[in-house]
């Protein structure tokens, strides 16, 4: 899923400091699963902002709404033209949300309430870790099912680099060296030869480097399914 972190409250208050009446829109997709932009978080953010503005002697009226998903026009359209009744709208969805909202409601200003960070999953309660860089050409099977593009700080295809120490990445003591794990897994499985030789030069055309990407499913476009 897409993982995000909520922006600091000061930054959000700054975004809407000239507003008297705003709407906070949550999303029931990924940001609900990673506890950053679902119903509960919308309520908490709205209450926090109201208190802060009241304390500052400049009360803020906040309406709340949670959409099924903000990355789907069908759901985004449910907000309706009433979005224009507000001075601004804060979206608690990933970076896709405020864009879908902006594209549909051109008169309104939408602000991102979260920083979208990565594609990943929960490794323990309350901890999410990156697993995928969305490079567009998946090759994790070549690396024991572990992705060095997303998980090596240098995206090495022939690691580990000289900074790997006791299974830890030199960049951050909290980060495992994924190449240490790849090598150990391959050695234990007696598949060391998989790591020898020079891998094909990666084409970054399918990644963001090739420009904004589009995925077309013809059978769906034609309405056959």
């Amino acid at each position: 899923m897409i993982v995000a972190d909520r922006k600091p409250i000061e930054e959000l208050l700054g975004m809407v400091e000239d507003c008297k009446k705003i709407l906070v829109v949550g999303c029931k997709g990924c940001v609900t699963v990673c506890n950053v932009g679902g119903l509960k978080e919308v309520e908490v953010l709205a209450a926090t902002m109201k208190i802060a503005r009241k304390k500052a002697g400049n009360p803020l009226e906040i309406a709340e709404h949670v959409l099924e998903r903000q990355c789907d026009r069908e759901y985004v359209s449910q907000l309706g033209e009433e979005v224009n009744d507000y001075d601004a709208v804060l979206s608690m969805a990933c970076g896709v949300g405020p864009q879908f909202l902006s594209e549909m409601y051109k008169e309104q200003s939408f602000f991102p309430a979260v920083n979208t960070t990565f594609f990943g999953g929960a490794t323990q309660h309350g901890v999410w870790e990156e697993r995928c860089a969305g490079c567009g050409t998946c090759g994790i099977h070549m690396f024991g099912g572990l992705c060095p593009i997303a998980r090596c700080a240098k995206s090495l295809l022939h690691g580990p680099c000289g900074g790997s120490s006791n299974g830890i990445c030199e960049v951050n003591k909290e980060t495992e060296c994924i190449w240490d794990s790849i090598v150990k897994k391959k050695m234990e499985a007696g598949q060391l030869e998989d790591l020898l030789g020079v891998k094909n030069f990666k084409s970054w055309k399918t990644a963001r480097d090739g420009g904004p990407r589009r995925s077309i499913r013809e059978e769906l476009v034609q309405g056959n399914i």
Partner: protein
Amino acid sequence: MSELKSGSNLEKVLAAGHFAFTGECGPPKGANVEHLVEKFQHLKGNVDCVNMTDNQTAVVRMSSMAGSALMVNEGLEPNFQMVCRDRNRLAMMSDILGAYALGVRNMLCLSGDHQTFGNHPEAKNVHCIDSMQLIAMVKKMRDEGKFLNDEDIDVPPKMFIGAACNPFADPYEFRPYRLANKIEAGADFIQTQCIFNMEKFRDFMSKVVDMGLHEKCYILAGVTPMKNAGMANFMKKFVPGMDIPDELIKRLKGVEKKDQAEEGIKFALEQVEEFKEMEGVAGVHMMAIEWEHKVPEIAERAGVLPRPVID
């Protein structure tokens, strides 16, 4: 290894069977050519070639290509370092051609220290290709005369291809295989990370010799003389991939502070003596970090002077 691939001085020295002695010189944090040229003078005639580092420790400095070209002008042979952190494959191939055009004949292919260690931690890291692929790319450019896309190169760059190896990084068991991979990719010579843990390096080299890697590639052992116990402590704690035994720190601390530099040099000289005899070691890469003026004395005391001159 009989036919010369690049005709560089380093290649000739190694091919003739001499024990190589290479040096290192960091470019300035500015365009201070005068200071750089002054540092060159300490190295001239005392080493076979000089590594020109490429934004080492991710701190921005004068480009390694410009530094290498300045070195050529001063009559020294550069070993042009290139990291994968700052350039994509277009810029890399372009700079390899540019460096060759400016007289560079050796290059060292590296991943590069991560930018978070440097003075612009906000920078984007490129890593379009990695160091293994950089080696293979330089080889393709040299031997096939082709760019990565298979287009022909009009006058290919004939580089003597170097790579790094850190026997002290983990997982240790994999390190000889990674070295083998670099040789397979096209490395002609290897310069190792600074060696301080001699016991571990002996073990590593015995594995390398058992695999026959020393017969496919020249391996130069990395030596850095410690200036004092503080430097040893700092490197142990803060430089990734360094293995500095407590005994060495104890040895440096065991003498008065004013004598610690001499003790550091003594240890380095003992290392050089051992490397001269160690099977599989073809030379020493002397990294006297910001201590270039000590290189003439170190080379003299190490008994590696005069350096061979080969036509």
